[in-house]
């Protein structure tokens, strides 16, 4: 019995050693194969992936411009490349602006090694913009290097500091009219109602074009009206009341 046991143990041991020699083998790791993608991205709270739009007005610029560039952030999915790659946006359904007249979309080269890129959308201060707000609905176009990228949410992390949405369609509204900016809700009480003429006066007096709270801060929020009231008083003393586009007298509360 004893002899048998020992012998069996021996065989088992030899067998194990032999198996061990052939048990592991390096396996090739499967990586993503296919065309790299590109998509729009923005913070979730901005709601640009759903209903919100980006807006641009030639009226709100500090100087008169015939063309301007609006930068559209794009995220690239897939491998980074050590060579420049071509990216292009195209218009989608819902676009009311006319390519070549109101805007230009061109294939541009993404530099090697980048995963995030600002696409330059060229806006043209067209005649129609003086009386219209045009919509440009954008989506990534197929190029030799890219197709539509991965869509969905990127969780908040230490780099982006907030959840982001990767999405297919981005809507931009463009005009050269003085449309009331959304941030004016915050200014109503201290700066009074929005009007195009008031806005122009503010740009002239304060030398800035962005009056959002993020830009002017609490100090500007409470002290700019003092400067504006003084400037308006000086204007009125010299020229009489300052009227807005609707014939109403401009005032700062």
């Amino acid at each position, binding site marked *: 019995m004893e002899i048998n046991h020992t012998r069996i143990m021996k065989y088992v041991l030899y067998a194990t050693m032999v198996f061990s020699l052939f048990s592991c083998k390096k396996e090739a790791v499967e990586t993503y194969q296919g065309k790299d993608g590109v998509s729009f991205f923005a913070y979730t709270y901005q709601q640009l992936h759903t209903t919100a739009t980006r807006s641009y007005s030639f009226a709100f610029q500090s100087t008169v411009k015939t063309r301007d560039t609006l930068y559209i952030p794009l995220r690239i999915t897939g491998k980074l490349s050590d060579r420049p790659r071509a990216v292009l946006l195209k218009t989608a359904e819902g676009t009311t602006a006319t390519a070549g007249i109101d805007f230009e979309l061109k294939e541009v080269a993404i530099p090697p090694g980048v995963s995030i890129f600002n696409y330059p959308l060229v806006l043209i201060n067209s005649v129609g913009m003086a009386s219209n707000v045009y919509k440009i609905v954008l989506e990534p176009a197929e190029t030799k290097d890219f197709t539509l990228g991965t869509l969905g949410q990127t969780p908040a992390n230490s780099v982006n500091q907030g959840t982001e949405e990767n999405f297919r369609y981005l809507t931009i509204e463009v005009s050269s009219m003085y449309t009331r900016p959304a941030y004016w809700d915050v200014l109503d009480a201290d700066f009074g109602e929005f009007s195009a003429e008031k806005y122009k006066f503010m740009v002239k007096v304060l030398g800035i074009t962005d009056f959002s709270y993020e830009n002017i801060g*609490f*100090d500007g929020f*409470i*002290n700019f*009206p*003092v*400067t504006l*009231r*003084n400037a308006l*008083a000086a204007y009125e003393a010299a020229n009489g009341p300052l009227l807005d586009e609707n014939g109403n007298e401009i005032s700062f*509360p």
Partner: protein
Amino acid sequence: MHLKHFFKLSSIIVIMLTFACSKDDQRFKYAQINDIQIADATTSFTVAQRDSLIITPTLIETMPGGDSFTYSWTIDSEVIADSKNLRLQVTLSPGTYTVIYKVKSNINDVYTLQRYVITVTGIYPDGWYVVNSKDGKGKVSLIRTDDVVFDNPMEVANNKTYSGEPLALYNFGKGGFFYYFTDQNVYRFNMNDWLELGDKSTILPHLATQLPFKSAPVFILNTSKFDQFIVADGGLYAGISGSTSDDIKPFSQRIPGDYDLFPGVFPNTYNLTYFYNNANMRFMRMGIFSRILEDAPQTTGSFDMANVGRKMIAYDRGISTLFEEEIEWYFIMEDDNDRYLMSLTYDAFGNTLPGVNQEMANSPEIGSATNFATSSILKQLYYTVGNRVYLYDMLAKSARLIYTFPAGYVIKDIEMLRSSSKQLVIGVNNGAAGEVYYFSINGQGEFSNSTYEKKFTGFGEIVQIAPARKNL
């Protein structure tokens, strides 16, 4: 087979047991080592910036003479000295620090530690500012609380000359710094080391009138301490004060409106700060974070704030709530006939209330009085005419002479030590030579022993006396 193993194991155990224990002879040898103790009774020190910190620890050794030591002094793990005694010029910012002193034996590495607590104060932490002028040039001197007098710390600290006639000095009130107005500029100085932090270009960049100021400007924070105000040449300028004195912002342009303010700002309630329009002789007001200067509404009671009909001559503060969210203010007003004591106070709900309104009868020379200071604990007021100090009793509605400086002296400014209302500080000019007197106030409001407690001389012609820690 099994038995064989059993015998083998048993033999090993027996052998091991045989040698496992042996009798100990219980003779322990102790070498006596030198025991060190740091026997300092004083382990906390207060030292001003730039002064020397000297600590000479007393070491007690049980076996003196046979050992040598390595010393180290550390603050926040940083070694600041390796000598037995500490002698260090303090460059630390004001604050409290822990210094660890370590004495280590070089023979056996045994060490002992002692912890010292060091409080570093500003070099000029507290006391009285004396704004004065010598040979047409302004300066601010400081009488520190330990009675050390600094003649011109701002020029020493900044190594530059500050020209111009001195007009006024106001502490920020939140600590940190003070404003100094000359007829040519406005400066902000760190109150601890007097280093310059800014001038007109960053403080009052939008001043409506070109300098020089026509009269001495005033400054104060509102009671919430978030708004700051300057009245200069009748115009009001407002700014946010920042959550700390570091993020302070410049003042606004002149607040628009047709007004000519008396140089005084009266923060009364958490929301409202008052001003007095000497042009139409009524109060005006501004809410917190508002930049609208509006006429005060009509009030019933002792007087109508919207129609006072008297010219403001002077002011000082009365009582206040614990955190100074409400402050009472006394005013000296004047009409064609007489002078009046009036006040703005507050009710239990923190609302503005007109206070006293009484003619200052039975008050010798009140018509020519130039300086006023009120007590925050007694219903009393001090006023001066020439070299004479009078005490006015608000309840008895009469005043009496309580002190006279020598002939030829002219009282320029009087200030109550607001924290206690027990000390009146008087700046006096004898020609172009300024002197400062501290008077202790007794329970009746008179000067203790009918004379001054301390006297400081050697100043130029005094313009203003200002407390270092408060802005009024």
